Each structure stands twice: as C-alpha cells, then as structure tokens.
C-alpha cells in the first residue's frame, strides 16, 4: 500500500453558461512514503484542482484518495498545504503567523509558541519572531510560510508553486532547504511547478499532467549521477539532467513559434 493513492480522480466544474468543464479525467497516482514528486503541466491543467482534492477541500466528481489506506473525505491533519503566495497575515508577527495552525488545532498557546520559535530558529529565522511580515524579505516570508506548514508536523506536504515568486538565487537556496527539511522529517511531498529544471532537480519522480481533460501523461523516476550528496544544486550538474528535461518538455506540448 502506498502512502498516498489517487485512483480514477475526475473533476469538473459548471461553467457560467451551464455546460460542464471537465478538468481532470481518471487521474491515478501512487506515491510512496518519503517520496518527493513534482507535478508539471500547462496552466489550467488542473494541478491546483488536484491538490484541493488531496487536501480534502473539494470532493472529486469520481475517484478516491487514500492516505495510508484511509479514505480522505475532508481536511486532514496529515496533510499540509503551502501556496505560491506566502499568505502571511500582516497583523500577526512572524511567530504568531507560524503558530496559526496550532492555534486552530487547539494546541495551548505556550506550547505552540515554543514549537514555533524552535522551528523558526532551526530554519534560519531566529530573531524575526517579533517582526511583522512587512519587515521580511520575500525569501524570509516564504521561509516563514514553510515553517508555518512544517510546525503542523504533516505526513504529506503539498507545495503549490511555492518558489515561483522568488528570484533565482533565493529560489535555489529555498529549494535546497525545502528538500532537506522534508527529508529530515520523513515527509512525503508533492510539488507543483512550471519550472522543469526545478522539478527534475528537486524530485525523485516527475509527473506530467496534460490533455483536456487532463490526465497523467508521463510519470518518470529521476535518477541522477551526482558527486557527493544530491541537492537541487548538484542535481543540475548531473549528465542525465538534460535528457529528463527534454523528455518532460516534449510531453508538455508547448506551442512554440515555428514549431508548427
């Protein structure tokens, strides 16, 4: 039994004119415990829709999601969601933002603060506990959002383009940190990204969603030969890197000028 199993997920939305807009068709995917999987696909292919189903925020039209064999039918403490926008609340300090989820889950305030500060410190945000988000840089804000996600001690982390608003260097750094932190905690992670390099360099496996309605078009394990430890930075030096990039690129059906 895999940690996370999607079987035959279909989802549609009703358009304003009443017709049915089929977004996902029969998506099936099994992800093992501790695996880091990236999902790439054209804009509008239903990646966020799929995440909403996994997070239990929307029931699929058909199909089932199971986590550790248990069926998902609502938001679950085993899953944490991190979005492209950091979504820090401007009226809360960094620490108060980080402890938001614990507060909602009814963890006593002192305990929540202790756990929050500990993680902030561990993930390089020591000293910013009392600052409001307006005083943090983009990278620090996204890092705080990551701490807010991890402090909930999820089994599965859903990352919906969390790096896309960052500059290249901050992004690489954060990619490395996220991968390390996820591994450290033994979490299973799914990352949605538009950046093929990012998907290949950070993941154990890349899934391509495509078609209308979308389904899984490609599912490739990434095996890279690197010297020393594999990180999103060293991965980019691997000889196989370009080959994976090309294989995924071809599946994305990107309409390029001149490639009629």
């Amino acid at each position, binding site marked *: 039994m895999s940690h996370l199993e999607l079987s035959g997920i279909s989802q549609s939305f009703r358009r304003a004119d009443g017709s049915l807009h089929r977004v996902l068709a029969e998506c099936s995917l099994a992800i093992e415990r501790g695996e880091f999987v990236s999902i790439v696909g054209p804009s509008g292919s239903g990646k966020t829709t799929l995440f909403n189903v996994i997070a239990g925020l929307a029931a699929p039209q058909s199909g089932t999601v199971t986590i550790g064999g248990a069926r998902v039918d609502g938001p679950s403490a085993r*899953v944490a969601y991190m979005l492209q926008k950091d979504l820090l609340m401007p*009226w*809360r*300090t960094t620490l108060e933002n980080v402890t938001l989820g614990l507060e909602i889950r009814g963890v006593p305030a002192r305990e929540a603060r202790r756990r929050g500060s500990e993680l902030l410190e561990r993930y390089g945000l020591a000293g910013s506990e*009392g600052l409001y988000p307006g005083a943090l840089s983009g990278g620090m804000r996204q890092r705080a959002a990551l701490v807010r996600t991890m402090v909930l001690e999820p089994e599965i982390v859903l990352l919906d383009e969390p790096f896309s608003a960052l500059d290249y260097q901050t992004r690489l750094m954060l990619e490395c940190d996220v991968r390390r932190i996820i591994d450290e905690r033994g979490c299973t992670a799914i990352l949605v990204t538009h950046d093929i390099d990012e998907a290949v360099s950070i993941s154990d496996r890349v899934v391509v969603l495509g078609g209308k309605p979308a389904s899984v078009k490609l599912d490739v394990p990434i095996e890279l030969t690197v010297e020393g430890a594999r990180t999103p930075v060293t991965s980019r030096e691997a000889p196989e890197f370009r080959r994976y990039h090309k294989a995924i690129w071809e599946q994305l059906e990107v309409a390029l000028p001149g490639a009629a």
Partner: protein
Amino acid sequence: MTTDAKPLGAALPRRVVRGAPWLRHAAVPAVQLAIAAVVIALWQFGADAHLVNGQLFGTPAGIVSAARRTFADGSMAADTTATVYETVTGFVLGSVLGSVAGLMLWYSRFVARVVEPAAVAFNGVPKIALGPLIIIWLGAGVESKIVLAFVSTLVVALLAAYGATREVDADLVTLLRSIGASRWQIFRKLLLPSAMPFMFAAMRINVGFALVGAVVGEFISSQRGVGHAVFVAGNLFDLNTVWLGILELSIVAAIMYALLARCERLLVKGRT
C-alpha cells in the same frame, strides 16, 4: 515574545530632517498656532478699524465674550453635553451594529444579496431627509437626534464591513480550511482582523456623519444642543455665538478623531 516590535522600516526616518528631535516635533504645531494667531489678530484688527463688518462676520473678542456668557450661565455645558451624548450614542450604535451586520453578511450569501441593493440605495439617501419623520415619531428630545446620528452612520459602517469581507484573499480562506479551521475560526482569525482597518476608515467618516445627524436634528426641533444654540443665534444674527458653536463642534470632532485613532492603534497591528 515581543508583540510591540515595529517593522524595521518604521524605525528608519523617511527623510533626513535637521535639528533636535523636540524641534522637529514642535515645528508643525508651532507653525499652525502662528497662522491661527495671525488670522485672529488680523480679524480683530479689521473689525476694530471698521474694515470688516463685525455685525456680519463676528469678531474674536465677541466670540470670547459669547464663550464667557454661555459658560457662566451653564448653557455651554448643557448644549455640548447634549450634542456629545446624541452624537456619541448614535455613532457607537451605528458603527457597532452596522459593522456587526456587515460582517454577518459574510455568513450568508443569500441574505447579503437580498440586503445589499437596499443598503446601497439607502446609503445614497441624505439622512437629513429622514429628520422630519424621525422627529414626528420620536419627539423633540434627545432620542430623535440619537436615531438620526444612528441612521447616518449605520449603512456606511455596514457597507464598509461587508466590503471588507469580500476583499479577503480567497487563498487565505483555502489555507485556513486546509488546516481544518471552522467557519467561526475563519471569522475570528481572518475576517475580523482583516476587516478592522476598513471598519476604522468607515468610523472616521462616520464621526462627521454622526455630528451632522445630531446637529441637523437639533436644527429641526429641539430645546438643547450646540445645533440648537447655533440655530437660535443665527436667527438673531448673533454671529459670535454661531462661531462659538462651530468651534465647539470642531473640538468635539477632533476629540472623537483622537480617541478613534487611539483605538485603532490598539486594535490594528502590523500595518503602517
């Protein structure tokens, strides 16, 4: 935990101002006082030299003696107390009930869609037009003025609070839901704090509206209040007493703004 820490940016001066800190703080009020003093002196001088018609424009000395007189006979205290009572009661009721109702509309899209067009239409009505009705129904006492101040502020507060709930980032709602937040928790932790600045903006506007409501009510029919005093004095061409009333009303408004600003600093955090 340091909850009172300011964003780093707030600690930095916006631009370099030369001079001692106390001088920098004192500069603006000093200039304001100087301008007021010059205007008052010119006004008095003009009236004394018969360059300005003191009968038509009043004089600073006349305003001072009107103040002395009304202070001595107790009418200043009675009138300002009445107006402040009407204004503040109407303002608080209108702001609180309006804000609560506006926030509640977030709970029910259906009710919101029923109520919104009516609220928008009512918002456009000059509330003064309701004065005669309200006074006929409630009489010439303070109640009718409170209700006028109340209806003048209610819909502004309601629309501001409801508008604020619609400005809330849908992704933040998604995030909270994914954590397992109940609707009440989403309201408490997200809707309320994010609507707070909008509600305060509405209250700043409503200070003026509440005063207009109370004073116009006093104009129409009353025995007491700054509006009453101004109305009576105006009919008698006692311009000095009219000026005094205007001065009293501006002081009341200024105090209300200051108190509001203090509440806002206490309740709205993390924004500059």
